[in-house]
């Protein structure tokens, strides 16, 4: 990577315009279209110079600004009717005012989030009927397997239907990292289910990366995978020489 240039990043053309207005220390109502347009174009050309992709929205706004500017220079056409088009400059001002409201509300939300995401709740207590004794005398290994399966099933369905509490953190994760993580897990466990690698607290991206990591590991001959039927869980097992002595 070469040198880095800091260029302020804007959420869109409206955001950029608000920034220019704030810099000029004027009210939204008092914008001078020709000045703002010049500055706006200047910013776009800086972006171009830095080879930054300019989203089409920025270009559309540039066209709007130029249109307003040119229409101001031209003599006003003879008023044909009272119901003419609304003044584009006034429209733009309205949009900016609307946008600013939500931008400010977003800032308010940010402050709240930084406070209230610090609240923690606890897991429900398990209420068990202690009157009943634990007897494992007639429980078989099949029962254990069935219990585990039922748990995984329950988890899957609750995942589908659940609409509440789900905390997801951004996980910047590389394929390479994920392969290392999976390898570490498989050294420990020997075998694992795909569903166990991707609990519901993870994002779709994370699931995809995990799956790619798994494919790569299959490709390298590190693991064997089995899936009994389409969409069922994938059973993953250590395979090959890689794991010898690493236990």
């Amino acid at each position, binding site marked *: 990577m070469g040198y880095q240039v800091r260029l302020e990043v804007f959420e869109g053309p409206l955001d950029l315009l608000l920034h220019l207005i704030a810099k000029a220390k004027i009210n939204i109502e008092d914008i001078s279209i020709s000045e703002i347009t010049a500055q706006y174009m200047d910013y776009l050309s800086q972006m171009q110079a830095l080879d930054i992709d300019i989203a089409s929205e920025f270009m559309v706004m540039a066209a709007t600004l130029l249109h307003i500017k040119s229409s101001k220079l031209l003599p006003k056409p003879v008023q044909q009717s009272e119901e003419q088009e609304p003044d584009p400059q006034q429209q733009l001002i309205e949009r900016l005012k609307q946008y600013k409201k939500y931008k400010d509300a977003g800032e308010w939300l*940010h402050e709240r989030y930084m406070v*209230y995401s*610090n*609240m923690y709740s606890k897991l429900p207590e398990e209420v068990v009927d202690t009157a009943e004794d634990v007897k494992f005398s007639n429980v078989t290994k099949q029962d254990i397997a069935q219990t585990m399966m039922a748990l995984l099933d329950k988890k899957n369905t609750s995942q589908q239907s659940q609409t*509440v509490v789900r905390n997801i953190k951004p996980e910047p994760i590389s394929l390479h990292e994920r392969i290392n993580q999976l390898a570490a897990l498989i050294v420990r466990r020997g075998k694992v289910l795909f569903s166990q690698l991707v609990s519901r607290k993870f994002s779709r991206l994370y699931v995809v990366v995990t799956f790619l990591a798994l494919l790569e590991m299959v490709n390298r001959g590190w693991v064997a995978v089995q899936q009994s039927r389409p969409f069922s869980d994938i059973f993953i097992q250590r395979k090959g020489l890689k794991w010898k002595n690493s236990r």
Partner: protein
Amino acid sequence: MEEQQMMAIAEAILFIAGDPVPVRSIAEVLDIDVDAAQSLMEKMLEAYALQPRGLQLIRINDAYQLVTRPEYGEYIRKFTGATKEQPLSRACLETLAIIAYNQPVTKADIEQLRGVKCDHAIAVLLEKNLIREVGRLDAPGKPKLYGTTELFLKSFGLSDINDLPPLEQQQGS
């Protein structure tokens, strides 16, 4: 039953439940009517707020939950090893603000207000379960309508959606 005792029972129940408990359930357990339970819980909420404690009572719509106070989050994370919640991006915050104040609202409405595409922000907010689809607009293409979730209320310390400050007030800055 004495009020204080009822509060104690409610506290025990909230502790056992962990999750938000509907005021209806509290009324049932205490064998009082829902209105009485509601006012009991509001009193309890105030009492909690006044005490210098590690816990607080919050209301989310019609349910109450015991949670730790936000100011001690850092200590909780030290204890549990959890990582701090990442701040939301500005794109997400703006999109969320628009949805919160205008729900139910379509993607097109949001994009019109923000002046940029919002697919990514919407996807992130959906995944974080801060917003959800609440239906479809009866218009060509049947666009999806978005609204906020209970988790949104909780994450931003709001009891219900009317707790949001009026939009105009912010304009001062």
